[in-house]
């Protein structure tokens, strides 16, 4: 605890003396590998149409279950083989990165905005607002996340935007909890008291004084949540209540891969999983590092 406080003091002192945050970020332990993987995945996702000549949703039934190029029976055109409908696996993986990133990042942002807003309102206003928001947060936290997601998906039906809404609806609670805790200690600090004395409205204080100070935590939490959200999306798609086919999503590919599993068509199962793992692992590494750098208070999480 004492180290945490000391580091907290240190980081605040840094802010006061004007040490740039970027400078602090460049310090030891920069997660080069994680960042590189994320950048490559992002570039591939953005330029998916340019990177692969194949349509990820259309296949040729004649070329079903072709193995990767280096195995006997494989062809160089389908570098990583084809699936049960003869669709190119590499093309689907590449377009799958687009779906995963889009869904993951949007859901994290929506959940973040919602959770942070409610967390600030709850922490700063206190009273019955706090009671209501926190009771709801506790209840939603008690619901098993995946089961709750499936329940919502069963009501809303499949669709990419529905998935984003569902994921945001489940995960905003984590932000609300953490941010509220931060706000509770922030609102006792001198700069907030001075703002009250200076006659700032509650709205202004929350927007101009509280929000900038909880942004670090929200960013760290968002990075850490990205992995969780992507795995949840994959699980929902795998169960058939997530991204609807024939869209290319890694979870859907795993579900399709089951059709060739007993025949030993390993590439259909192993490759999409490796992609999920790379993305989640990178997001977690980046999040862990950001947590240490930006927000010592979150270290215990």
């Amino acid at each position, binding site marked *: 605890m004492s180290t945490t406080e000391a580091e907290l003091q240190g980081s605040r002192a840094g802010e006061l003396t004007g040490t740039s945050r970027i400078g602090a970020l460049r310090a030891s332990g920069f997660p080069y590998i994680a960042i590189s993987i994320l950048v490559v995945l992002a570039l591939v996702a953005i330029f998916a149409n340019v990177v692969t000549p194949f349509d990820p949703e259309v296949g040729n039934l004649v070329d079903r279950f072709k193995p990767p190029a280096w195995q006997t029976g494989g062809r160089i055109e389908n570098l990583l083989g084809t699936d049960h409908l003869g669709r190119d696996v590499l093309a689907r993986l590449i377009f799958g990165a687009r779906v995963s990133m889009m869904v993951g990042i949007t859901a994290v942002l929506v959940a973040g905005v919602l959770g942070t807003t409610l967390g600030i309102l709850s922490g700063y206003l206190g009273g019955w607002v706090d009671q209501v928001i926190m009771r709801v947060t506790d209840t939603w936290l008690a619901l098993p996340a995946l*089961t709750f997601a499936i329940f919502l998906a*069963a009501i809303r039906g499949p669709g990419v935007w529905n998935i984003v809404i569902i994921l945001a609806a489940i995960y905003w609670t984590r932000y609300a909890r953490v941010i509220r805790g931060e706000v509770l200690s922030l609102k006792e600090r001198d700069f907030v008291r001075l703002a009250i004395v200076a006659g700032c409205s509650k709205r202004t204080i929350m927007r101009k004084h509280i929000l900038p100070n909880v942004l670090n935590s929200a960013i760290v939490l968002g990075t850490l949540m990205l992995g969780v959200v992507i795995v949840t999306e994959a*699980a929902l798609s795998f169960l058939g209540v997530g991204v609807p086919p024939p869209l290319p999503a890694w979870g859907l590919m795993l579900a399709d*891969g089951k059709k060739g599993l007993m025949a030993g068509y390993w590439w259909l199962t*192993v490759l999409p999983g490796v992609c999920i793992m790379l993305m989640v692992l990178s997001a977690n590494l980046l999040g862990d590092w950001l947590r240490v750098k930006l927000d010592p208070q979150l270290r215990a999480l």
Partner: protein
Amino acid sequence: MKRFIAKRLGYACVSLALLSLTIFLFVRLTGDPAILLVEPGASKADLEQIRTQLGLDRPIWVQYGTFVSSLVRGDFGQSFYYRTPVLELYLSRLPNSLLLAGAAMTFSLLIGIPTGIIAAVRVNQWWDSAGKIFALLGLSLPSFWVGLVMILFFSVYLGWLPSSGSGTALHLVMPAFALGWYFAAAHMRLTRSSMLEVLGSEYVKLARIKGLPEALVIGKHAFKNALIPVLTLAGINLVIMVNVAVVVETVFAWPGIGRLLFEGISFRDFPVVQATVLLGGTMIVFVNLLVDVLYAVIDPRIRYDR
């Protein structure tokens, strides 16, 4: 003490009420609940019948009252697919889920506790880094993918283990591993941090000053105390395991609650889906209550704290 328990019990009741209200409102607010609660392909007359049965023409708080009173009586509706009460179905699958969760928990503790202790004793050495990588991998790999890869390796290529179903101990091996993997990483992390905290305490220092051999200090003095938070987490996780097993149970066709939920989605059997989320939430509320009360019994400071 009695006041503390009463207060916690009150909280749990509020949570349960809000839980049912949340589920109730979600079903009502996102369209026509009659369509969800009537079998796919039902006639107009059937739709009208379910409307009057649910009292959808009455005020919403009356509807909520009806909803809660039927839940309290244990009436979670009838499964469209199995034609039996949902609660009966749920309870018939529960033992399988508990068996799987128990096996997965045993596995996760057998892996998580020893590795966590080693990582704490050899902090910042080779072992510790290996443990950190293991924990990170465990938290990053989706459990259903671990399951699928295991099927590929152990069932398809090696032919050692059955790929799906239940019945023998061999059927349990892969699902338990796939489900326990993530939790092994979580238990390892907690064991490590808990051990580190205990190793820095006064009584461990005293034991060392007394000249006790290091093995005895760690095994007898530190380990026992470090285990308390780990076992608490394990208790909560057991219930969570029952509720997150849906993907693993689907992969291995394990006939537990998760599989029931999956069937519920596949057959558009909405009462099953609704009951699973309600009962899962209820279980978690009760476990949290139990943990709170047990903690208060063990540690009197908590009773006055809050």
